[in-house]
């Protein structure tokens, strides 16, 4: 009885500490976090496929809406990766980079890395040029960094990844 009580109290305290650490903003995120902690969280496949379709058609706002529906608790690393990627692609311009979108992308890719087992996330999608969260993170950070090479006219020929 007492051993079971100790296990119960430890598990409950750990759960509460994890809630305070994760800071869920909605009830869905809270419930999703609970489900993910016991391995029962699943992404909605229909919304995920719809998000992918929008993403590949460069409809990034629509894609994010669909991905958010697919992963309302923000617990699935690949879905968060695609959301971050959509911020990158939407914020990428031949002559400029949208800092606000890049910052949001950086925030989401950090979340994706945090959710990935061991912090390593690889998405084997042939339509992407960056397949790991580390590459995407570095690209977003480069876009936010101001340096002399930004003035190089050769940057006009750079391709979106």
């Amino acid at each position, binding site marked *: 009885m*007492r051993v*079971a009580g100790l296990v119960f109290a430890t598990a409950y305290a750990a759960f509460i500490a994890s809630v305070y650490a994760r800071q869920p903003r*909605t009830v869905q995120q809270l419930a999703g976090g609970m489900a993910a902690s016991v391995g029962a969280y699943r992404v909605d496949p229909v919304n995920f496929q719809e998000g992918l379709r929008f993403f590949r058609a460069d409809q990034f706002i629509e894609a994010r809406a669909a991905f958010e529906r697919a992963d309302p608790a923000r617990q699935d690393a690949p879905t968060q990766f695609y959301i971050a990627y959509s911020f990158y692609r939407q914020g990428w311009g031949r002559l400029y980079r949208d800092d606000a979108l890049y910052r949001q992308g950086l925030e989401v890719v950090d979340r994706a890395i945090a959710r990935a087992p061991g912090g390593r996330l690889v998405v084997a999608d042939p339509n992407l040029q960056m397949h790991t969260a580390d590459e995407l993170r570095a690209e977003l950070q480069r876009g936010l960094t101001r340096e002399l090479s930004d003035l190089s006219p050769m940057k006009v020929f750079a391709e979106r990844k």
Partner: protein
Amino acid sequence: MTRPLPPAREAFVLPALFLTVAGAGGLRVSPDGGAMSFVPPPLITLVLAVLLLGVMARAGLLLPSGLLGDHRTGLENASGVVVLLSLFAASAQLFTCLTPDAGVLRLIFNLFFLFLLWNTLAAQPDRTRLLRSLLVVFGWAYVVRYVALAALADPQAGWTRRLLTVLLEGASSGPIAGEATAPLAGYVAFATLALYMTGLGLLPRPAPSAAAALVTTRAPDVLE
């Protein structure tokens, strides 16, 4: 001497109650009810929690010998430590729950708790009186925080807001700003307070003979 607690109460019920209070005490809901956040205990609430546990021990509401000691096995002591730690966490988060988040009101609330606990410590009440006193103190804090201040911040509060504004007129040099609170937060805080008081009521009690000795020590004039 204490009455032994039923094992289920000590191992499950008390930790569950106090950990629930510790978790729910830091919950904040945005005024529109759209977003929530969890606030860790500020340092001052840890100090208040230590003081509160001291007051409880002094009054016989918290009997450490009922939870820890050489007369208990290692497992029983571990169980007692869990109860004590969860009670401490719950106390700290209850203060977080009942205190405004910022501004001069937060300072006033914290000073209010500090002086009341200090005063209670000096008064040396018995278990029952301390329970009543805590109910009144926390109950009033709840009413001020979640009813009065919420009404002051709510432009649609109607007669409650007008009544409070009239009552507080002249009490300060300027208008007292309320603190916008989502209705859900008030319900959660009420449940949190109720759970905490329930948990206190379930803590180990002194054995009848020990209780009589406690009364003799504390209030000899009453017995004479």
